[in-house]
């Protein structure tokens, strides 16, 4: 186990795959000479050379599409989308092309590419560089979606994604690149896609979290200071998500709270809540609860952005309200007075 920053874990995952598989190549803007806008590819050009580690022009459609084609031709390209928003000029290649390659060729062809994109709010990049946008990659049969919650999963999920036979999107919470966590490198550190991870065990409520909301959930639990205990489930993969682990946990706790960095309208948590509510109909002690961002663009101002994303305080207060009333508390923007 080594304690490293998430960005270093990404570099290590890429290095290990480049090392173990000669078909792995990296494409992206300023990922080679500059080591990436977030330094998540630092040193890889020197180690693996300009043929396999390539800086691209500002042409997302072309280099994402080129990754699709290179993947179909037998390589395992890893594309960096510096900010997930940039996929908005190239989404067609991922959703309408890559995700259908296996189906349309009846399995004769595959598109084993990985798209890494930094995502989410928290750093003051403003509303065009702070969206999470996981929904662009959901509801897309043929496409998988993973979201690390720190260095450990950034390493393990990325390696699993690169080895997956199909296209996988990995949304790296930008706010976590600098955070440290213990990581087990090597094969043992690979985190299989489709499996959730229980990061805390308790009895009163199941907190389902993803990406940056995992540390938020953990902090909320600490703030509760024993007032309530929780299973905290890090989904790790959003498509496909680990139904078994979540249902099993909620069967035990009887209460489900999903902490999302996603808008109240359209956020991914509804699918979790609805599925679990159906599986455990009549067994829940309280309605499933979503703690989300408001239906608004991400504000630049620091106090506003801090309020925008679910904070440990907000999660703790929403959970206690749920426990106290057995009803869903209103989201903070519908409640009066400071939350």
């Amino acid at each position, binding site marked *: 186990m080594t304690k490293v920053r998430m960005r270093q874990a990404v570099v290590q995952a890429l290095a290990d795959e480049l090392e173990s598989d000669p078909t792995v190549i990296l494409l992206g803007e300023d990922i080679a000479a500059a080591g990436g806008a977030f330094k998540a590819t630092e040193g890889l050009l020197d180690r693996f050379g300009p043929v396999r580690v390539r800086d691209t022009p500002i042409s997302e459609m*072309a280099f994402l599409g080129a990754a699709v084609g*290179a993947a179909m031709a037998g390589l395992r390209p890893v594309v960096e989308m510096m900010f997930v928003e940039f996929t908005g000029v190239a989404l067609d290649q991922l959703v309408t092309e890559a995700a259908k390659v296996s189906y349309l*060729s009846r399995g004769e062809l595959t598109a084993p590419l990985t798209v890494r994109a930094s995502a989410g709010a928290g750093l003051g990049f403003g509303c065009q560089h702070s969206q999470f946008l996981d929904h662009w990659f959901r509801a897309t049969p043929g496409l998988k979606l993973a979201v690390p919650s720190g260095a450990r999963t950034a390493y393990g999920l990325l390696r699993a994604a690169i080895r997956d036979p199909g296209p996988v999107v990995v949304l790296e919470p930008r706010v976590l690149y600098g955070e440290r966590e213990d990581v087990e490198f090597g094969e043992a550190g690979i985190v299989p896609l489709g499996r959730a991870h229980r990061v805390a065990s308790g009895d009163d409520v199941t907190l389902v979290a993803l990406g940056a909301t995992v540390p938020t959930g953990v902090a909320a639990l600490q703030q509760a200071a024993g007032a309530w205990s929780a299973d905290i489930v890090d989904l790790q993969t959003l498509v496909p998500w680990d139904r078994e682990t979540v249902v099993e946990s909620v069967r035990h706790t009887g209460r489900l709270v999903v902490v999302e960095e996603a808008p109240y309208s359209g956020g991914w948590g509804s699918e979790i809540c609805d599925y679990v509510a159906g599986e455990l109909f009549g067994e829940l002690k309280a309605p499933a609860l979503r703690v989300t961002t408001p239906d608004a663009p991400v504000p630049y101002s620091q106090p506003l952005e801090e309020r925008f994303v679910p904070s440990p305080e907000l999660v703790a207060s929403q959970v206690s309200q749920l426990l106290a009333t057995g009803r869903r508390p209103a989201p903070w923007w519908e409640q009066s007075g400071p939350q």
Partner: protein
Amino acid sequence: MNGERQLRRAALATPLGPFERMTEIRAVEERIQILYNEGHVRGSTHLSNGQEAVAVGVAAAARPTDIVTCTYRGHGQALALGLTPTEVIGEITGRSIGCAGGHGGSMHLAGPDVGLWPTFAIVGAGLPVAVGAALATQVTQAGHAAIAVFGDGAANIGAFHESLNLAAIWRLPVVFVCENNLYGEYTRIQLSTPVSDLADRAAAYAIPGLVVDGQDVAAVTSAVREALDRARNDGGPTLLEMKTYRYSGHSKSDPATYRPAGELDQWLRRDPITLEASKLIENGTATEEQLSAIRSLIAAKVQQAAADALAAPEPEAAEMLMHVHP
């Protein structure tokens, strides 16, 4: 590997090969037209009649190991590359015998073993993918090349610009083959494009751009071959503009009333199959009798292929859940 496809591909190298294949493509598309009118074809289907020389010329110049990305107007390209009339008609009529098991349809023909990747129904989408195929061969030094076939209308979409630029910067072994048939759907090129020769756009990327007679299969073959040689010898990409014409409307629902009177007749006078036939007779490769014998033979074969396709079963419902993930 599918032996018959390979043999059919090799046959293009014979003196009569191009004539035979163009004749077959024409016959298959005439059959598809009938099948469409009879209600055996769903959605829309895009005929390439009039453009057979481009499809055959590209296939004749390319190796089976080279990758070709092309469009929804891909029947001719698929047959030229080696797919059989039965598996093409079978796909278009949604039969399990089809090249995609009836799951793809007219716009998504596929034959990876002869270089045909599932054809692209999104305009311009095949260009970046071909660039990627070229990138792969550059990385692995496999010596292959890639060919992107697209239309004149696609020359106005972002993917065209980005793909040519990326291929140029990386000197990738890819050939961009633009089938300029004068129309993008129902819109004449002059209404969508301010330049008359799309080949001129190559200058914006400092790569060679050539105008080619798309009705002359030999001219197409040699132009593509030359570009492929340059590509394989680290000469980078080439943009080839094939001047051609589609006899039918954009898709089967289009009567093509927007075309100026006489335009079609004028192009029919330079029909690629007729041109090739006269050549073969002139240079003594074949007699008119031989050629018409070939024509009727092919007609019969295609009729049989259609019968075989329609006789084949439709796919099972459970199949739609297969191969979603590799």
